[in-house]
């Protein structure tokens, strides 16, 4: 088991290398010259060339990639063109709200969707099943910002039970921290929950028709024991996979959610950076997200062994 994890970790190195190359190239080849932006409207050609040389932008592709990746490996993600501050610092500053938001979203979505999916599968074909799946379709098809504004309207404007916007760090008190996270997590989690609920239901339905479920019933186990002890573990692999994929979806959703709820996280940092063509920040954030994604994939893969003893490592 341990050697399997190590082996899998080593296998992610080339993957991360390719990711880094893609992230770097994406911006290398994209139109728009950061030197021109920094120099400003009034600058002469001469000024722009000077800036370009200073920043190493005149160097060939592979040299620039080498310099960049060398820095990345030492935790240096470059310097923001706009604020002139290290990208790593900027990311660290914005990390907490985003981590808090994604983690709470995942908790909300999984805690809601998995039980609902199980119930829908158990009661397949009944009104309960149809109601749950109806919500799933809704959650899946309504855009994040619509859900977000609707939630704000109901809970903040009409009922006035939750704050409209903003973020409070956990260091400033747990209750306000949670209060500020509820609506964004619900908004962001809706799609995610819908997806997980659907997969959970489908996966459970398949398992429930298996012979071993009938065997479990023939022993006199009750519904709960059959569902949770015998069926769920068998259904877990697709569910965990979709949770992993959902994390990637979340990363996209974070940008919108943070904007709507005015949360000063990585999503906002990215949007601002894109608007200003602040390349080092964009690169840094994408690299971080990619890294997180590869890591989640690894976690998902390793978890398969836990759920299914037939999977060899």
């Amino acid at each position, binding site marked *: 088991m341990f050697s399997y994890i190590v082996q899998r970790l080593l296998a992610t190195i080339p993957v991360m290398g390719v990711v880094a190359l893609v992230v770097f190239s994406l911006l290398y080849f994209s139109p728009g010259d950061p030197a021109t932006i920094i120099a400003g409207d009034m600058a002469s050609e001469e000024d722009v060339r000077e800036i370009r040389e200073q920043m190493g932008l005149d160097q060939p592709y592979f040299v620039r990639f080498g310099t960049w990746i060398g820095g990345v490996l030492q935790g240096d993600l470059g310097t923001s063109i706009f604020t002139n501050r290290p990208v790593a610092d900027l990311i660290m500053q914005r990390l907490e709200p985003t981590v808090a938001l994604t983690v709470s979203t995942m908790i909300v979505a999984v805690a809601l969707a998995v039980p609902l999916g199980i119930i829908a599968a158990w009661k397949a074909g009944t009104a309960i099943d149809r109601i749950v799946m109806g919500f799933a379709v809704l959650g899946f098809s309504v855009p994040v910002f619509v859900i977000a504004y609707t939630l704000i309207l109901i809970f903040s404007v009409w009922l006035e039970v939750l704050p409209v916007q903003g973020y409070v760090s956990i260091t400033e008190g747990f209750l306000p921290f949670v209060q500020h996270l509820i609506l964004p997590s619900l908004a962001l989690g809706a799609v995610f929950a819908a997806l997980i609920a659907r997969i959970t239901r489908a996966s459970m339905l398949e398992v429930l028709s298996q012979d*071993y479920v*009938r*065997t479990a019933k*023939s*022993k006199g*186990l009750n519904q709960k024991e059959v569902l949770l002890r015998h069926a769920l573990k068998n259904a877990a692999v697709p569910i965990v996979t979709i949770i992993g994929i959902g994390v990637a979806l979340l990363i996209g959703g974070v940008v919108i959610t943070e904007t709507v709820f005015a949360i000063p996280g990585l999503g906002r940092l990215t949007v601002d950076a894109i608007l200003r063509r602040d390349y080092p920040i964009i690169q840094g954030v994408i690299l971080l997200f990619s890294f997180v994604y590869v890591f989640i994939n690894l976690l998902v893969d390793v978890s398969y062994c836990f*759920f*299914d003893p037939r999977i060899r490592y």
Partner: protein
Amino acid sequence: MVATIESAEEDAVGQQGHDESALLEVEGLSTYFFTRDGVVRAVDDVSFSVAAGETVAVVGESGCGKSVTSLSIMGLLQTPPARIVSGHIKLQGRDLLTLPESEMRKVRGNEISMIFQEPMTSLNPVLTIGRQIGETLVLHEGLSEKEAESRAVELLRLVNIPEAERRVREYPHQLSGGMRQRVMIAMALACQPKLLVADEPTTALDVTIQAQILELMSDLKQKTGSAIIFITHDLGVVAEMAERVVVMYAGKKVEEAPVVDLFERPRHPYTAGLLDSVLKLGSSSGERGKRRLNEIPGTVPSLKDEIVGCPFAPRCSYATDYCRTDAPVLEEKAPEHFAACFHSDQLAEQEN
């Protein structure tokens, strides 16, 4: 003399093979499937009983309602589409069909347990053997997880699984088909049930393994004294395993007799056909595993349409016009020997 008096009483209450010491009595059981394209009469007015410690074989071709009968007894049918439309299933006089689900759960795996046809798919792939055997004991006998595991080891030894201490921690995929069926048997016997329903326990196995499993089952039957309903395609196996035989055709019981009687003097042409196919192939016992009871020409009628007359008529060489319009009822043709056929005397003469 005694037999006649008894049978007179039975006729009065409309039951066959009724016995005061009966462990299980299935009376007029009808189980239908209500599907989109019609009602499937999978089991139609079937009655039989099983005495304590007795082995009763239920035989018949594929699709004649053997599994549906056993699932009806276990209360494991999916409703809908299945529904038990009439009848009683009494375990020591208690009607299982009227028991609330919570009470029925105390019967399953405890008083009646079941072995399924497919050992490869009937065990949960993600739980250890020990856990799967042990959970029945935890559930019905209130053992702790630890006690249950050591009992599981004993049970694995009982079914002759070598290295039981190691096997108990293994998963089903680490075991062969024969071993898995042994595990199923261990699981079924864990709480010393009064009745074991074995639905074609050896059909999916290799011939040599089949023989071993059958031997194990007869052996365990001696040790535990459980009654067994032994469902099979294979009349060849019946002689070794059972004391009494129920023959089913198209959802109905068409013959019932003590095993020797049935083999020597079948009273229903269908049974005679089944026996013929055994005799033809019976010389090479190696064939047994592959052989199915389909050597009688023709096919089982669809259970979706109302069957007029005798369901076996289209395939029966004794059939007369009468058979095609009127349905024969089950009658006692000889002591303890019941058959539903108008011409069973003619058949009996021929056999002699």
